[in-house]
């Protein structure tokens, strides 16, 4: 990037709250952050979670014997999958339980949580669902599972893979519906209104389907792969990483973003690496590959600087359920908490 486009021009005028951020040193690469109540839980690349309370006390909790490949949280617990073949459940009080151990010690690549307590995970081509009652079922798909997501209503699991997504009702015997689209589908999310399904692909693009009629929605134009997506509080837009601005796809109408221009917000001379929409307000937090963190008002693009650029990319970003605290972390383990 050219020096001429450094942020210095804006840095003077932009509202900054960097001095109100409580720095936290995790001491190892961080891949995600979740809130359990008011405690921020930073997920290390390997082995360990770090619990950071509101007062800033940090406690480390080893959960896997190896890399932590994926985590999901519903605010009450975190479920994680590791390269040790284990699915682990962690609760706010720090209690740890092993939910499953893969018989062949295969990597647990993905995990997902359902509001009613069901848990899903995948190892290789097999997706597993364990209901709140502890009943376990599995389903094989055509290739290794790229991502898992529970539908907002009913017990329905989306399993992304090569050339599409399988929509599986684990409690029904019917043949699962398959949404086709050529290529490798990785992350997968349902829209909060249960009308759309969106995947992030290996190519720098998203693909979506309208669930009512499986109509395709191609969302392309990114310079790099989209690794972070977040629904706005009203569920009407999907904020995405991958470009040097936040790309915001409009999903308010019945056609989703088809035939509409996406919103373009928070341009920076750096790639957006993480997005996290505020749970209640018209605001999102944005992390960049140069370490910058901004808060951005979606309606007019107004920006507040939360963290200045630093050495490493932002790799974790999350709000607590109330939307009163923002947690972030960079790849080098430099993290912070900002209370609104």
């Amino acid at each position: 990037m050219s020096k001429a486009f450094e942020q210095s021009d804006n840095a003077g005028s932009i509202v900054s709250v960097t001095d109100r951020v409580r720095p936290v040193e995790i001491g190892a690469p961080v891949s995600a952050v979740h809130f359990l109540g008011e405690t921020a839980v930073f997920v290390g690349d390997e082995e360990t979670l770090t619990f950071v309370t509101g007062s800033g006390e940090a406690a480390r909790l080893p959960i896997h014997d190896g890399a932590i490949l994926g985590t999901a949280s519903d605010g009450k617990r975190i479920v994680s999958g590791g390269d040790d073949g284990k699915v682990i459940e962690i609760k706010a009080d720090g209690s740890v339980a092993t939910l499953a151990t893969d018989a062949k010690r295969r990597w647990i690549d993905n995990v997902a949580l359902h509001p009613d307590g069901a848990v899903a995970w995948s190892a290789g081509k097999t997706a597993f669902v364990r209901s709140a009652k502890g009943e376990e079922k599995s389903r094989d798909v055509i290739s290794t599972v790229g991502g898992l997501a529970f539908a907002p209503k009913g017990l329905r699991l989306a399993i992304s893979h090569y050339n599409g997504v399988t929509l599986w009702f684990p409690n029904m015997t019917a043949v699962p519906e398959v949404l086709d689209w050529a290529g490798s589908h990785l992350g997968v999310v349902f829209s909060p209104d249960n009308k759309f399904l969106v995947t992030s692909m290996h190519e720098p693009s998203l693909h979506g389907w309208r669930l009512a009629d499986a109509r395709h929605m191609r969302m392309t134009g990114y310079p790099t792969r989209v690794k972070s997506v977040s629904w706005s509080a009203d569920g009407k837009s999907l904020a995405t990483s991958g470009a040097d601005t936040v790309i915001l796809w409009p999903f308010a109408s019945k056609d989703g973003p088809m035939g509409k221009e996406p919103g373009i917000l928070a341009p920076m001379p750096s790639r957006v690496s993480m997005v996290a929409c505020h749970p209640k307000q018209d605001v999102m937090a944005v992390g960049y590959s140069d370490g910058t963190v901004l808060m951005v008002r979606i309606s007019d693009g107004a920006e507040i600087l939360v963290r200045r650029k630093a050495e490493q990319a932002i790799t974790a970003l999350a709000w607590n359920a109330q939307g009163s605290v923002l947690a972030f972390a960079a790849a080098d383990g430099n993290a912070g908490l900002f209370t609104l």
Partner: protein
Amino acid sequence: MSETTAEKIPVTVLTGYLGAGKTTLLNRILSENHGKKYAVIVNEFGEIGIDNDLIIGADEEVFEMNNGCICCTVRGDLVRILDGLMKRKGKFDAIIVETTGLADPAPVAQTFFVDEDVQNNARLDAVVTVADAKWLSDRLKDAPEAKNQIAFADVIVLNKTDLVTPPELAEVEGRIRAINPYAKLHRTQRCQVALSDVLERGAFDLDRILELEPEFLAADEHDHDHEHCHDENCTHEHHHHDHDHHHDHDHGHGHGMKHYHDEDMQSLSLHSDKPLDPNKFMPWLQQLVATEGQKILRSKGILAFSGDDDRYVFQGVHMMLEGDHQRAWKEGEPRQSRLVFIGRELPEQTIRDGFERCIAA
């Protein structure tokens, strides 16, 4: 992604037809006392007799990129596994990817060309092909996969040489050289090859293309080389021609080396003492791989451009190319351009004519 100053992890791709001895070589790499720790991505669990928590099973899942490039296939499982392995950086020094005996090495190599995350963290070191001295000649006739693996190789471990007679060995080497004269070739029994000959080769490192010149261009240091050529003219010929002209008096193997012209898989070498016009050459090369990329398995070149004091180097796998200015030409160093293509049914005359037109006026 942020720029990482950390060293990229080298990745060795280990191929070879069924039964050639891949697992034997892998077990040697893992068990020898070299002080290095390898993460290994395998297709068959259980064949490896070494206890190592960094042995990962893969499903060899290939998918086509949605970029309109029909031969642009990528190993999605490898992207995922490398991503997961990078979370354990520091726990291992290098990665070995074993492919199945029937695999085409191209999707593995292409994964390193197209995936940004993979490129940021790892680098392809070399494609090492283990071949069975007794059966390779037959497989080259009936198994296109075996031919691909030889054509693609940077290093060939010609194994089980104790099971063949010297004339049979000479024949199989001749067949290998007819397809790929540029790979380093090692004759072994039970894969007894120095590990430094198969690991840390830097075969895909643009900066090290210079070091590869002996095999790559003309004078292989090996005693088993049959296409020595110190003659200026020979680079304009197929290498089997060089071999025809030179091997008897240059070496005198006493093997009665025969010349094999593989019907479809071959290499093509181009050479010019006159500088090339970059404004003609680059579009020509890009067009060539765009139209003929399915046939071209590997390509490499060291180029002298007119009005440019730097050497330009490039390499490619099918339709994917990468290239860069490497360093300044040294004083007294001949500013020559050399290109090599290894492929199937290469349109030789078209390529030669196109190349000639790129020579600067």
